[in-house]
């Protein structure tokens, strides 16, 4: 519909959600491909004696380009947190970071001339590959998990989930007043030790083997089987609440896992990139120290 949109072009603002992978019609993907192609061409064209290696003029060129790229890629961590200066949108930077980081794989591999060994030079290369791999996982998790997270939440945020769980705890405590001791103990344990999150392994794996709520539910089924009618009614109430609680806990834990998946890769990506920085420094200095 030609809605008159005279101010539509104001401020050059985008009015569509554009992911960092698609940003500016894959501008940075194209740049990265061009860089990779240029590197490959340079590599093939020059055939130094005795073999292609990092110290030929193409090798030095690729090496310098690679080193500069690594430093610029690491700068992203600072740029991401520099909010006052107007340096363009962060989406553009991330798009460039991802694609140029991938092109670095090509550039650096060609720089090695495929000479590998048990030394600091190959260590730097290896660390770089690990950094890029962890970044690749990062991209994957950024593409996959947001939607899953929204789908799991069904419109309720984490704070609200927590208050619902807390309120269910209160309700359970009241509801369990009239049940037998065993059930009361199970419910008490469930209420006292509601576990959400925890160590990074638990957050990632959604493995809560000691979930008291689950234990309570299991225990209750057993008790319910041999319960008197009055007790059974009280227990039904408790059971319903426990099941609600269980579902909420599952949802919350799943939410935690999705968030953790979107965060965990950075715990590899960042430290490894600093390791890479050190190895890169050592590599460059070593090469010219014993020239």
């Amino acid at each position, binding site marked *: *519909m*030609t*809605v*008159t*949109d*005279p*101010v*539509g072009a*104001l*401020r050059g*603002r*985008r*009015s*569509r*959600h*554009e*992911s*960092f992978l698609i*940003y500016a019609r894959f501008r940075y993907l194209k740049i990265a491909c061009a860089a990779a192609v240029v590197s490959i061409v340079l590599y093939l064209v020059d055939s130094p004696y005795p073999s292609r290696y990092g110290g030929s003029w193409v090798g030095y060129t690729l090496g310098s380009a690679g080193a500069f790229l690594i430093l610029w890629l690491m700068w992203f*961590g*600072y740029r*991401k*947190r*520099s*909010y*006052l*200066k*107007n*340096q*363009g*949108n*962060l*989406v553009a*930077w*991330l798009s460039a970071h991802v694609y140029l980081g991938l092109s670095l794989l090509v550039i650096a591999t060609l720089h090695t001339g495929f000479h590998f060994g048990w030394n600091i030079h190959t260590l730097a290369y290896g660390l770089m590959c690990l950094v890029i791999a962890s970044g690749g996982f990062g991209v994957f*998790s*950024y593409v996959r*998990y*947001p*939607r899953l*997270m*929204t789908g799991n*939440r069904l*419109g309720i*945020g*984490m*704070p609200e989930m927590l208050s619902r769980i807390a309120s269910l705890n209160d309700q359970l405590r009241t509801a369990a007043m009239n049940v037998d001791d065993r059930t009361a103990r199970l419910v008490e344990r469930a209420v006292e030790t509601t576990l959400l999150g925890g160590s990074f392994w638990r957050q990632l794996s959604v493995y809560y083997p000691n979930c008291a709520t689950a234990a309570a539910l299991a225990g209750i089924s057993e008790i319910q089987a041999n319960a008197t009618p009055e007790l059974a009614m009280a227990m039904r109430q408790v059971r319903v609440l426990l099941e609600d609680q269980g579902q909420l806990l599952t949802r919350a834990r799943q939410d935690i896992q999705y*968030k953790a998946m*979107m965060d965990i890769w950075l715990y590899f990506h960042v430290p490894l990139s600093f390791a890479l920085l050190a190895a890169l420094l050592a590599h460059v200095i070593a090469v010219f120290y014993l020239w």
Partner: protein
Amino acid sequence: MTPTRLYVIGALAGYPLIKHCLNQGYEVVEYILGNNIAPADEPLIQAKLDHADVAMTVGELVTTVRERLPLFATLTTLQIREFLIRSRLYKKQPGDVVITLGEYANSVYFILDGEVGIRTDPKNPEELAKLGAGKFFGELALLSGRRRTRTVVATAPSLLLEIDRNTMIRLVRSVPEVKQAIDSQAVIRQIKVGLAPEVDDQLLDEVVRTAQVVEFKPDDTLIEQGAHDDWVYLIRSGSVSVSVRLGGKDIVNAYVPAGNFVGEMAMLMHAPRSATVKAAVATEAIRIDSSAFRALLDRAPRVRQQVEKTLNERLVEHHRAELGIERGGVLEFFRRTGVVEATDVLLIDESLCVRCDNCEKACAQTHHGISRLNREAGPTYATLHVPTSCRHCEDPHCMKDCPPDAIHRAPNGEVFIGDNCIGCGNCERNCPYGVIQMAATPPEKPGLLSWLLFGMGYGPGEDKSPEAIARRTGSKHAVKCDMCKDIDGGPACVRACPTGAAIRVAPEQFINVMRQGGR
């Protein structure tokens, strides 16, 4: 011997009129003494004339105004002078720009002398709808609360009178005929500008005569699907939603803001209404008689062309609606959550958002450590999330009751709270979306590098722990999003989003968001 006369001078008094009385009293005394006395406002208005380099006396100006501007024909001199005090005079040469498309509107312009042209097509600056002496322009944006929808340039040496919004409103309220006059004038112009820029006024006469301004409340129906009426509506202010009933459900497939027309399909195709049109917010529309409209189309082939072009596009949209493409859900969501009354709202696509909270951190870092944005809170529809952040409403609720008048709208449309906030909390209570909070200033924290390298301080973002809140000093005052109006680059939240999930949209761009279906 000259007879001694006793004059008793009296005037209506009362606290607000003291100055009036003093002035009038002074004038009477001078008049009795035989001195030529000019009214107290004479030098003020003269200053305006001098400033605009106009060689006229105040008296001449008043006469010109009364003679040239039909709106002021029924006003007394005193009233005219009162309005003149609050207005500005401009002398423009051909080619001078008077108002620019996109500016935030605050005033109406009257043409005392000369001629202006309204640029009807931004891509075609030479195509102008001309207005001569006695006409006014700029009232559309004023009344509908949006930005200027057209650029206006002077096409001949002109003398323009600019009256600000509040004064105009007062004028309209005090003189009912003015409202009618403005309406009818505006109707002509809107029809002309919106449909047929080069068509003579006379041709439009028939259309204008049968036109009627109708007011609708939110959710009122302008057009009912299946009905046999064939009026055409030109939306003056507010906005409407167009929906189609399919399979028992109303599927909204379009959102039409002010300045556009709806309902022409039935008129052209002689068919029953194909869609339902409802007001999204309080709307004023000009109802145009279809036969008059048809006559116009016969007489002006270019108009017909344009209308048919629009018609074709709308048929496509209609067909899309029949395919069930879900867009209405988004609009319904916008309506429910009040986004429709926003002029600039932050929208987050949750399929892209990685919950990194960089937007919140950016907001806090650019605003003395307090984030005006709560990313997680706020309603969600499918993957479209509206975080809790000021929407800079068309009619800001917060502005309604601010004792020190600290809340204003900046030229670019941002609603911001100024330094003179006294912390009364009225705005926080009045805001239906909870975007305002009362907060004191947090202490300075170590710089970014010391945090990055050594972990000193909290780092970017707002520290919401109870200990940190306890360390905030000073009295609380109201804080809310100001669209980063003082920051180079615009909204920090959008700039800081790494995945492209956060964008700020104006209502004109809702259609783009709707087309994505809140995916």
